[in-house]
């Protein structure tokens, strides 16, 4: 990609370009082999890991809505032990930063996950998913309480020597307050947003479509909300932001960067089109050429 400088700094991480994959929408990166070389992207974020193996939620696990996707996969994953045994090796083949997304149901879960992943240099950073229910605390998601976000972030930082990205839930009254909590606990980077809590009802069966009743809404439908949150948070924190939520095109990605994001992640778009990440990257590149912009960094936060 000739004279254009697409590289971005994500706190301690340096990416050769700003396009990442979003957790849960690219598996462990291996299925892309048939389509394109994921190493073209800036980084990949693999799917959410929990301490114990988890078989996920009942089917149906997805429902299509207008411009959106409801999912209640339920964090199906082999658990940390099996991950370390069976997948770390595969990840070694990537030439770009690999970020591992971790989830828990108690503050201690996050600490243990961080501790177990600490030895592996194959991993460039942890992304802490605080959107799951806090079982000890009555089931509200960690991410809706700034005090809990602070504690989870702090614990992970204490147990993990590398970079820590905190991924915020959008289902909150004041996203800035939560972002500040993560920052003050030492988060290196913020990811926003995770999915909006939603549901769909099957009018023929007269019951919820999803086996789990509620699901997370993603896709272009949520882009305006995601963009607003990135815009708000970018004005109030110093640490870099990975913007995501409905990015389908280079134009969408650029909106996030103009709103203050340093990098972007492509999620649902991967499901619709395995080539989405590459397409987003190419369209960003084309935009820079067209507008005579030499470094992507010049655009960061320009609409603020």
């Amino acid at each position: 990609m000739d004279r254009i400088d697409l590289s971005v700094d994500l706190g301690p991480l340096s990416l050769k370009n700003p396009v990442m994959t979003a957790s849960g929408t690219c598996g462990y990166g291996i299925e892309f082999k048939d389509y394109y070389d994921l190493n073209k992207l800036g980084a990949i974020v693999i799917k959410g890991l929990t301490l114990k193996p988890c078989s996920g939620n009942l089917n149906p696990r997805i429902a299509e809505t207008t411009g959106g996707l409801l999912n209640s996969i339920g964090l199906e994953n082999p658990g940390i032990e099996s991950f370390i045994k069976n997948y770390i090796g595969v990840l070694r083949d990537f030439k770009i930063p690999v970020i591992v997304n971790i989830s828990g149901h108690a503050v201690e879960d996050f600490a243990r996950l961080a501790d177990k992943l600490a030895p592996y240099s194959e991993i460039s950073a942890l992304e802490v998913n605080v959107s799951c229910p806090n079982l000890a605390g009555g089931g509200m998601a960690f991410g809706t309480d700034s005090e809990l976000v602070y504690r989870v972030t702090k614990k992970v930082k204490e147990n993990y020597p590398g970079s820590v990205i905190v991924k915020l839930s959008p289902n909150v009254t004041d996203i800035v307050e939560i972002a500040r909590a993560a920052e003050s606990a030492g988060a290196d980077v913020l990811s926003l947003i995770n999915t909006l809590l939603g549901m769909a009802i099957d009018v023929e069966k007269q019951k919820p479509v999803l086996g789990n009743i509620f699901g997370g809404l993603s896709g272009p439908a949520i882009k305006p909300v995601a963009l607003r949150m990135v815009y708000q948070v970018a004005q109030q924190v110093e640490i870099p932001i990975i913007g995501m939520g409905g990015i389908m095109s280079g134009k969408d990605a650029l909106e996030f960067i103009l709103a203050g994001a340093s990098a972007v992640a492509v999620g649902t778009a991967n499901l619709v089109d395995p080539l989405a990440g590459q397409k987003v990257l190419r369209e960003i590149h084309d935009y820079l050429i067209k507008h005579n912009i030499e470094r992507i960094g010049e655009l960061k936060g320009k609409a603020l």
Partner: protein
Amino acid sequence: MKNFSDIIREVGVIMAIVKNSKQLGNGYYRLDLADSIIARKGIPGQFLHIKISSDNVYDPLLRRPFSIYDINRDKGIVTIVYRVVGRGTQILKEVDRGNHLDVLGPLGRGFSTDWKNKFLILIGGGMGLAPLYFLAKKLVTSNRVLVLAGGNSEEDLAFFNESYGLLDLNLLNATLDGSTGYKGNVIELFEEQLSYYNPDYIFGCGPRGMLKRLKEITEEHNLMGEISLEERMGCGYGVCLSCVCNTEKGNQRVCKEGPVFNINEVIFDGQD
């Protein structure tokens, strides 16, 4: 628009040309797509994941999965047969000859076809007969094949009776209203047939309830075989875990480890 270079390099995401799109009667539609790659690579039981909306339009957002009904390798044409059930298929039926469709495929694991001199029974319910047609076409060249076709009525089966009728196989119908063939469901017909025949291997495709009963019967009779499952799909190529089914090996992805599974492997639990 996809870049032309992408299309050539990354087989799998293909702008296929609509060769023909027509109504078959009784709510069935047929779509012929010209694409030499899919036509060369596709095997029975695999499916195509078709984008319904045009470029940069995100409603409907997801692709729609359809089994390969037939392939004409010489002409480079792959065919699907489908029923209009919702918004996606409603829009699909409006495509015109010459349009381009964004198709991902062929995807998934297909049926085993390397059988010789065996007696094989294919059991299909409704749309389940679509993927079995391509399978039957492969199998009849060197095996004895019996097809059991289940539907609501004679009308419902008319298209498949005609198409299967041209192949060198035996075909029996089961209709719920008894308008043709056995009166009842196709599983009852299968059970009845098992008192005359002892198949070497069976293949099934149809609604979940039907496949569940089929598994019970094959277990009872110690039969081996394969079935093709349907689940709601996000990606169709294995990254999202929307489409899992429970099996002896734990959760498996219908789009990747399936849609065709060993019938003994699948565990039918939970929701219907």
